[in-house]
């Protein structure tokens, strides 16, 4: 591990990238098993599942940044685990991102 110490891996970022890699893997598998045609949605541009995933991810990044900038990351409640785990309000942005991703996959 000494050789990649400069990459400064942490558990949360590793989980994030692992989830991202899984998503891409699943999308690749879907594309191979259930091929699909482009369709034109509310943006009036032809999109595939990959395009919609890309738009969802970019939008999720924007939503999180706007949330950090405007609302902040104060804890909203504490989970009763051990000495109590504080849950940041940023998770609400994550929920909004997931909902927007669902909307994008259905309408764009």
């Amino acid at each position, binding site marked *: 591990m000494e050789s990649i*110490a*400069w*990459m*400064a*891996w*942490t558990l*949360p*970022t590793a989980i*994030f*990238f692992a989830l991202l890699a899984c998503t891409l893997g699943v999308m690749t598998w879907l594309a191979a098993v259930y091929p699909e045609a482009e369709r*034109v949605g509310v943006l*009036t*541009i*032809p999109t595939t599942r990959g395009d919609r995933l*890309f738009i969802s991810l*970019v939008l999720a*990044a*924007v939503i999180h*940044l706007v949330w*950090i*900038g405007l609302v*902040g*990351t104060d804890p909203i409640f504490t989970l009763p685990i051990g000495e109590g785990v504080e849950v940041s309000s*940023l998770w609400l942005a994550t929920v909004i991102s997931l909902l927007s991703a669902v909307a994008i996959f259905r309408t764009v």
Partner: protein
Amino acid sequence: MDKTVNQKAWFLVLPVFLVVAFSAVIPLMTVVNYSMQDTFGNNQFFWNGVGWFKELLDPSTDLGGRFLASLGRNLLFSAIILAIEVPLGIVVALSMPREGWSVAACLVILALPLLIPWNVVGTIWQIFGRPDIGLLGYVLNHLGFDYNYVSNDVDAWVTVIVMDVWHWTSLVALLCYAGLKSIPDAYYQAAQIDGASRWAVFKAIQLPKMNRVLLIAVLLRFMDSFMIYTEPFVVTGGGPGNSTTFVSIELVKIALGQFDLGKAAALSLVYNLIILIVCWVFYTVMTNAGTDRPAKEGVA
């Protein structure tokens, strides 16, 4: 039916995959890791969560103030150079000869500034504008203008903008010229029969026919000016004060000057996101502008 899919072709993608992994994916992952931590060097990192992003997006902090100010300057710079270069490029393209040896001469002269490396352009203008030995600075000062790009904000801005216009208007002009060349003579003949004025020809024939190349020109110039680093860095070094410090100059100051890897990583991720979004819009508009879909034609 014969099987036309050859799965072995996937191996041909391997080199690209490796290049992208090492040039883009691994560095990007590292930047994401850095943006969540703080370091004092020696590969020792301390978890900071989204702290740097909070600071970056809060104008009252040092980092946020610098980022938002440089972003504002960068957008203003892009707006100004687009407002100058696009109309100027169109005028240059319209006044270029259509045939004969002079076409080649014009094209070569126009292409010259595009071939000069950025830091050479910066050095040329840095010396050109000096009040003591530079032709431009010396002449302006002797004509009675108090011109000094090292000490005056407005002079520094004018220098950087004129330099960019000098460097890149040819690109817009060449793209527009290519667009103009593709208009068949029949259009002009029809306009002549109708007795159309020069302005009517421009508005009804030339501008609509140039609109795709103009779109490319605007987006290319926007992206380039939004990422500008070398030229203003060589000429003004971001000064006087911070008046010509654009986002990329600020980023390098934070990352390499102060060695604040966490702050710089957060800044570059947000910067990257802005560029990613603009690129996506660029790509989408470009790939869809030429397609004639029934749905779109109905609207038009």
